[in-house]
């Protein structure tokens, strides 16, 4: 099992256990983490699963592809270098302990 940490409103941290191959969005849904909507079902079409990846982790994630980059232009909360879409970040052993902050608003 891999650990994935979500920083929610007011800075509260929720740590969930998930498996390799599960996306950050799916892990959030599985564990009832508030704030990631994933309205399009994880197809990288709606930008409602916006997270800010914690600084130390940003460079350790596989790079976003063209589709995700295009969607990151359309998030409701401002997109930053640390921004990723939860549906596109896939958990792996290398990302055990990943820390992400849920964007304040998705719609």
């Amino acid at each position, binding site marked *: 099992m891999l650990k994935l940490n979500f920083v929610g409103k007011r800075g509260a941290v929720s740590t969930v256990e998930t498996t390799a191959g599960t996306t950050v969005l799916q892990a959030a*849904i599985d564990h*009832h983490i508030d704030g990631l909507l994933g309205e399009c*079902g*994880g197809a990288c079409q*709606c930008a409602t699963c916006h997270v800010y990846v914690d600084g130390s982790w940003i460079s350790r994630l596989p790079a976003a592809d*063209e*589709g995700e*980059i295009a*969607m990151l*232009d359309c998030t409701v909360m401002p997109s930053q270098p640390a921004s990723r879409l939860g549906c596109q970040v896939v958990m792996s052993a290398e990302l055990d302990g990943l820390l992400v902050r849920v964007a304040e608003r998705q719609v």
Partner: protein
Amino acid sequence: MTVPGVVIAGGGLAGFQLASSLRDMGYARRISLICEESVPPYHRPPLSKAFLMGPMDPAKLQMRGESHYAEKGIEVLCQRRVVAVDRTNCIAGLDDDSKLEYSHFVFATGARNRPLPVPGHDFGGVFFLRSLDEALRLKARLAGVRRVVVLGAGFIGLEFAAAARKLGADVTAIDVADRPMARALSVPMSQVFAREHARNGVHQRFNTQVLRILEENGEAAGVELMSGETIAADLVLIGIGVQPNIEVAAACGLEVGNGIVVDAQLATADPRVSAIGDCAAHPSIHSLGHMTRLESVQNATDQAKCVAARIVGKPYDYAAVPWFWSDQGDLKLQIAGLTTGMDQTVIRDDPAAPACTVFCYREGRLLGIETLNRPADHMAARKILAQRIALTPEQAADAHLELKQLVAAAPVHA
């Protein structure tokens, strides 16, 4: 006696989103979500894509876990249908003879597969693809299949064709139309997709009508065309479209046409009854007010939100810019806007990539933009249409004018 709340007929995306949005917007009364299928709401798009390609736990398709509904106080009734609506007394009748009072009733009944108008759909090896049940049976059969025939070169047919091709099958897609996705795409984009699918080894037969499905020992063995020619197959997928589930609405006296007729705020003539998603026909501002029925994730989601807002007392006209996607193997199609009635197209094609952008106009006005493998153009297109940013055919033809720059340079209105 509790005050009646909202009864939602249909546990697809529209019904799920309506229930969720109502709670998000603070609606505190009872919400009943009536689902025909045996499982709570799930995402359909993966059924014709990733779900077919490898191991995927069907539980991962669920929109939310079952405890979510209990937490939110959303009553989900599976394997149930609303069979009648008594609009005089505001009572919905279910197929188990139970009754549900409502203060607001919403049809989110979606659509069902259009049946094949020729014999043979009962044979083993013949499939439709809309539900999880159908996808599971199809997936089980797909392993080891060598020759696939797809009837209907629309979105589902071609998504399946591309998946089957990736799995190593010999694939033929057949359509009565003269090009793929003829209902929804411009001629140039259809031609690009025909070219790319051909490149990937998918055989395509247009202007072709099927006489019957052939069988051997009760299993599909191929198809016979009107010409007499036969094409062998061990699996036949039928993807010739869907028809909206409007029967209960019609029976309770509501106007139906190509869908349950609603107004700009998605209400029927009965202010306590609305319709959303694949089953609803609304007057779209993106189609000069013509009655429009859209089959898309975007429409289901945004129409649900619109009705939720009206129910909690914050009505607005439904005006969201339509958008759509279809992943056919490595070909990612996206569409922004409603392009029906286009009379002019401007094309930016890069066959080597492959990538393509088609701008669709009517009387000089931009209706929409179709893209192949150009997500940045698609997202710019959504903004161009939403903000009504001017984009003339001349500008569209200028390949050096990046759509993203056009959006960035547009004046922002307060």
